[in-house]
């Protein structure tokens, strides 16, 4: 008899064998001719730029948050869809109300300009020859905008 954890163990073993087996077979079969661009990190076909640990623009975060909220709210659609046939018109109207409120929120975000990317351009550090280095740093207030 296989216990509950026995099944989990079998699942784990199959998973490990599947991945490791694939790698090993590929390693045995493939020709080995490395050159620099092959060894470089894959970055969607572009030539990789800069360090991995760069700071992302804070606007990514705003968009990500908005996405998170709308994405998670959609969870309510699944149970609704399952029982929709039994509930009929009432459930339909109820879901329309719910989606309508989400739409109001979306309209608000859109109109307030939180989805626009072309907001005031941040000042970049500027170097001028001869006078010495003049650096205009972004103040925290400007980043916040």
């Amino acid at each position, binding site marked *: 008899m296989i*216990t*509950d*954890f*026995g099944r989990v163990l079998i699942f784990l073993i199959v998973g490990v064998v599947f991945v490791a087996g694939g790698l090993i077979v590929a390693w045995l079969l493939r020709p080995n001719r490395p050159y620099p661009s092959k060894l470089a990190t894959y970055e969607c076909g572009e030539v990789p730029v800069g360090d991995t640990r760069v700071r992302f623009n*804070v606007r990514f*975060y705003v968009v990500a*948050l908005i996405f*998170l*909220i709308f994405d*998670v*709210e959609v*969870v*309510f659609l699944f*149970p609704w869809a399952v029982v929709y046939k039994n509930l009929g018109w009432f459930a339909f109207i109820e879901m329309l109300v719910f989606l309508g409120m989400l739409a109001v929120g979306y309209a608000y975000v859109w109109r307030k300009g939180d989805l626009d990317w072309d907001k005031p351009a941040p000042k970049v550090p500027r170097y001028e020859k001869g006078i010495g280095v003049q650096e205009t740093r972004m103040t*925290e*207030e400007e*980043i*916040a905008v």
Partner: protein
Amino acid sequence: MGSLGSFWNEFSAWLPHVQLAHFLIVSAILFALGIYAIATRRNAIMVLMGVELVLNAANINFIAFSRYSTDMNFDGQVAAIFVIILAAAEAAIGLAIVLNIYHRFQTVNVDEVSSLKE
């Protein structure tokens, strides 16, 4: 030693058959880890992550109790869906507030953000 051995025998006989208690133990461990993070971390984001652990511990409880109920009780599963959504909303608002704090104080350390007098 004998008692430890018999405990081990009982334990190894009990462990493989997954029941309600297994889920409750996982959830209790998760809850304890969450509380530990809340109590020891001073970084506001870490504290919020601790809260997420506590919420998910409660979610495991809800779903386990619902699954092992005798009368096909779905209240717990419904509760879990709502908790997931509220946790997302709380995380979004929490991160927005923490970001604002970073702009004002240049730190997200809960102890250092104290301009209001004790």
